[in-house]
């Protein structure tokens, strides 16, 4: 029942909030925080109880749901899912604490946010394609409203673009699921059976078509070039908490889908398309970085840096080596906490200055020293500085991918240089130099902001020094997964 609790306690909290008095905002916020905090504790317990020495599914819960169609309620975690459960629970709690300053429609906001968390958690623990799809779609609706109602000036455009883009993607994904279901013998939606049975051995054409259908669905979410343009719009318009979740968790759903569904169920197609994926990874990394460099809006810049950093995930995956996969999954985790922290920091300055134009700041460092220090850590983590989380995962992606794609990986290393160019350029323009007199009134980060930032910061440093905390969890599952691609 542990996994079900993690998945549905937020939903329960959300429903309770709907029953609460709209006037009592403090109670609503407290309720939401508790409902988001419990999954964090449970995820910690899950981590503690998790057996790192096996690749099997753990904490499995299985019940028939629609027996005539072979649909079951099947939850479980292994080395792929557990890191994502942890990062989701953590970022959801952080996003909810960040949202305490929401003023409009408080009740609906927190209810939707908790429903969103249930959807995301469900995606990472569902082991039945049908269930997976339901959770996947469940994520879209609350996010659509969060952007569309609580967003910035162009919120309607961004929200519609977000939902149409992802729905189109998931239509293809659904077709892919159905194709897999009807081709498997006996018909099943069970992801574990499908991936272990090597059901579609030798059916390369079928595998390729199904792969492409699924890929479209997942690629939009990652996002992979050229399906990425919903991301900057959604980020810029979304409220801070929405951005944290978008970058920290939603993008990972795409990459996780590739890892959990696409690759294991369709291994031959995965090998067939590996080169293309590596090429797309390189485009993501370099194109994302160059485009980030061209941005004048701070949030947009970080959004494009996400495109670039997700490229490392794709690169690591495409190599189909243990180290590459480990690197990719670790990078998903690390990117989640680093970008989550970055968006939160952007939110802090935006709340005060009501602008995100990089050129409009200048010399903030003197005015907000503590904030600047936190930003410096997050920026350096995004630049891939050793001692902070991002370095190890990028290194592993490179080490894993290099023997397979020498030139592409060499090109990808340039991304590390470019990230320094745009990140430090931003840092220089906003924080150093003479203080722009316009900002002489800005207040430094307050207590609530510190509290919501500290866990992420601590994790960034901790994982930089001791990556085994996450690496050891995933290693066994991945070691068992990779031989399937040989």
């Amino acid at each position, binding site marked *: 029942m542990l996994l079900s609790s993690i998945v549905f306690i937020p939903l329960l909290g959300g429903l309770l909030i709907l029953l609460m008095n709209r006037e009592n905002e403090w109670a609503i916020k407290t309720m939401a925080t508790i409902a988001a905090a419990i999954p964090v504790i449970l995820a910690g317990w899950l981590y503690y109880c998790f057996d790192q020495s096996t690749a099997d599914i753990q904490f499995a819960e299985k019940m028939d749901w629609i027996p005539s169609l072979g649909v079951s309620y099947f939850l479980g975690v292994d080395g792929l899912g557990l890191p994502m459960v942890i990062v989701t629970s953590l970022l959801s709690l952080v996003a909810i604490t960040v949202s305490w300053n929401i003023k409009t429609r408080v009740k609906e906001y927190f209810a939707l946010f908790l429903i969103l968390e249930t959807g995301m958690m469900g995606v990472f623990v569902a082991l039945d394609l049908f269930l997976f799809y339901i959770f996947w779609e469940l994520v879209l609706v609350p996010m659509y409203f969060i952007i569309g109602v609580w967003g910035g000036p162009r919120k309607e455009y961004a929200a519609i*673009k977000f939902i*149409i*883009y992802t729905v189109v993607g998931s239509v293809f994904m659904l077709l892919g699921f159905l194709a897999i279901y009807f081709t498997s013998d006996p018909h099943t939606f069970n992801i574990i059976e499908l991936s272990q049975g090597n059901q579609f051995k030798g059916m390369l054409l079928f595998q390729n078509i199904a792969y492409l259908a699924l890929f479209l669905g997942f690629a939009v979410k990652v996002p992979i*070039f*050229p399906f*990425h*343009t*919903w991301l900057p719009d959604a980020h810029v318009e979304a409220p801070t908490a929405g951005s944290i979740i978008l970058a920290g968790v939603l993008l990972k759903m795409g990459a996780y889908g590739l890892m959990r569904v696409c690759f294991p169920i369709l291994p031959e197609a995965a090998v067939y398309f590996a080169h293309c994926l590596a090429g797309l990874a390189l485009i993501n990394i370099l*194109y994302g970085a*160059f*485009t980030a*460099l*061209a*941005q004048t809006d701070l949030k947009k810049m970080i959004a494009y840096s996400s495109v670039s950093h997700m490229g490392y995930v794709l690169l690591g995956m495409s190599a189909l*080596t*243990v*180290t590459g996969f*480990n*690197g990719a999954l670790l990078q998903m985790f690390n990117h989640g906490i680093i970008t989550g922290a970055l968006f939160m920091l952007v939110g802090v300055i935006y709340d005060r200055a009501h602008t995100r134009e990089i050129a409009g700041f200048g*010399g903030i*460092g*003197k005015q907000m020293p503590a904030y600047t220090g936190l930003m410096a850590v997050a920026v*350096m983590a995004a630049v891939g*500085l*050793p*001692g902070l989380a991002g*370095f*190890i995962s990028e*290194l*592993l992606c*490179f*080490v*894993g991918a*290099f*023997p397979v794609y*020498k030139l592409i*990986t*060499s090109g990808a*290393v*340039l991304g*590390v*240089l470019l990230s*320094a*160019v745009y990140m*430090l*350029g931003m840092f*220089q323009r906003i*924080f*150093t*130099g*003479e*203080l722009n007199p316009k900002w002489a009134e800005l207040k430094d980060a307050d207590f609530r902001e510190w509290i919501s930032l500290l866990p992420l910061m601590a994790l960034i440093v901790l994982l930089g020094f001791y*990556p*085994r905390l996450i*690496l*050891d969890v995933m*290693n066994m599952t*991945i*070691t068992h997964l*990779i031989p399937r691609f040989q």
Partner: protein
Amino acid sequence: MLNYAWWIPLLPLITFVVIIFLTGKAKNLSSYLSILSTFVSFILSCKLFLYLIAHPETVEMSVEWFRTGRISVELGMLIDPLTGMMLVVVTLVSLLVQIYSRGYMHGDPALSRYYAFLSLFTFSMLGLVVANNFVQIFIGWELVGLCSYTLIGFWYQKPEAAAAGKKAFITTRIGDVGFMIGILLLFSHAQTFNFLQVEEFLHRGILSPGLLTLIAVLIFCGAIGKSAQFPLHVWLPDAMEGPTPVSALIHAATMVAAGVYLVGRLFGLFSGSAQAMLVVAYIGGFTAIFAGTIAVAQNDIKRIVAYSTLSQLGYMVLALGCGGYTAGLFHLMTHAFFKALLFLACGSVIHAIHSQDIWDAGGLFKPMKITAIVFLLGSLSLAGIPPFAGFWSKDEILIAVHNSGHTVLFVASIITVFLTAFYSFRLWFVVFTGKEKEGSHAHESPAVMTIPMIILAILAVVAGLPGSPWMGGWIHGFIHFEGLHEMEAEHGGHGMVMYLSLAMAASGIITAWIAYKARWISYESMAGTFSSAHSLLFHKYWIDELYDLTVIWGTMFTARVSGLFDRYVVDGLVNGTAWVTIAMGRGARTFQTGLVQNYMLIIFIGILGFLLTRLL
């Protein structure tokens, strides 16, 4: 037995953490903590060094850091005489600089941040020096880069300082891209990051010569960036925007020498490829003479010394490229002392006259006797005058270059001897002799600054002795590379090289004396006569401007193009698709008018058409 060695890098790290989290508000406490921990590290380093003198062996200690698949990444220490020497140099210079900073940085509001990052730097540099594998050395490598970035930009409200920090970080990272690819390439063949295992792998001779050269050159890119060799040298002069003690520690004695150390540490890799050695030698030799010429025409006291650092680093790289393993690393050590000394003495001058322009100084000998004398000792050492430290190590380098048979490089390095002596004494004569400037209230720095300088001055005098015949060239026995030892021992033309270099150094000093002390010739009219040459040197061969127009412009252009491409082409297609869909919907809507007559008309036409096709 050697377990205490772990504490050498760890103590400064602990200090960093303590300062950041606990003593940030207590500035003085932070600085004392930092000095104390570095002192303990220094004592432990000395203990280790003495042990290594008695037992010159290689000891490896390591723990597994993490594991992925079959690959194990470790953190460890590789302790051999080279490590021992570097540990002593780094901790000693760091200690002296930190003590000196108590005076130089007195009253700075951000003193805790200053000492925190000096501690972090010391840790990172020590971690780099003791590394037993590529990942760890790369980590130390990047972390010293971070400390350099933050300390150059320490006074971040000065836009130049912030820009210089960024420039340093990014320029060295360009080299690091090559370094990283080199590591990846080597790893993909050797399947290990461990230095000793890589060496073993290289001994097996599986690697093709071309690949070996490629790997060595790629790794050398990292050294080019960090040791500010041409063409990535542009960051170092700008780095002088940082506080002067930082320049002494990071940008003279230790971090910039990391590139040289890297080549030394991986000498088994480099010496295996003659082509790679040639690249190393020519890059070093070119940088030596190139930077030497620029130094001649600069007016900023710190920049002169910075270009001199470039030039001397070029010497070290040149020596290694010519197979002079001992010579290059020996010069690294002596240079660390006399160049740190020169920077601290520069700091003392700047402290006194509040300007960095040498023409604002003059006649400072009288008010600042100690600074003037230690500056002179440092300059003599730098110029290579016996029996000062620099003479012995530079002599070794010249012999190594001579023995390698690269005539061009030898000529360049001999000319550089002249340039070195000339610019050092130009600086000294202008700043310390002549008339004192009007309204100058220059006075000697406090003891907390002069004592570290005096200690370094003593080292600048005696640190060369291990390479002198009086100690029987002891350094050759201590720091040597297996297999190369014999080659170096075959000294030929030893005396000739020494006399030649002495003559060049002496004529450099005399020329400087004629032009800047005796004023027999007017340097102003000289600069006027050769105005184009002077302008070329003064503007540092316009390299910065060239980069602005090519690399930087190219990058920004690409960025702008991809930004526009993204907005108008990629997103344009997306919105275009949406528009087409909407238009099709609108088109389809015209059929659904809700007027029964229209439907009847269409049905009628349809039936008509159907009947017609049937009939015909």
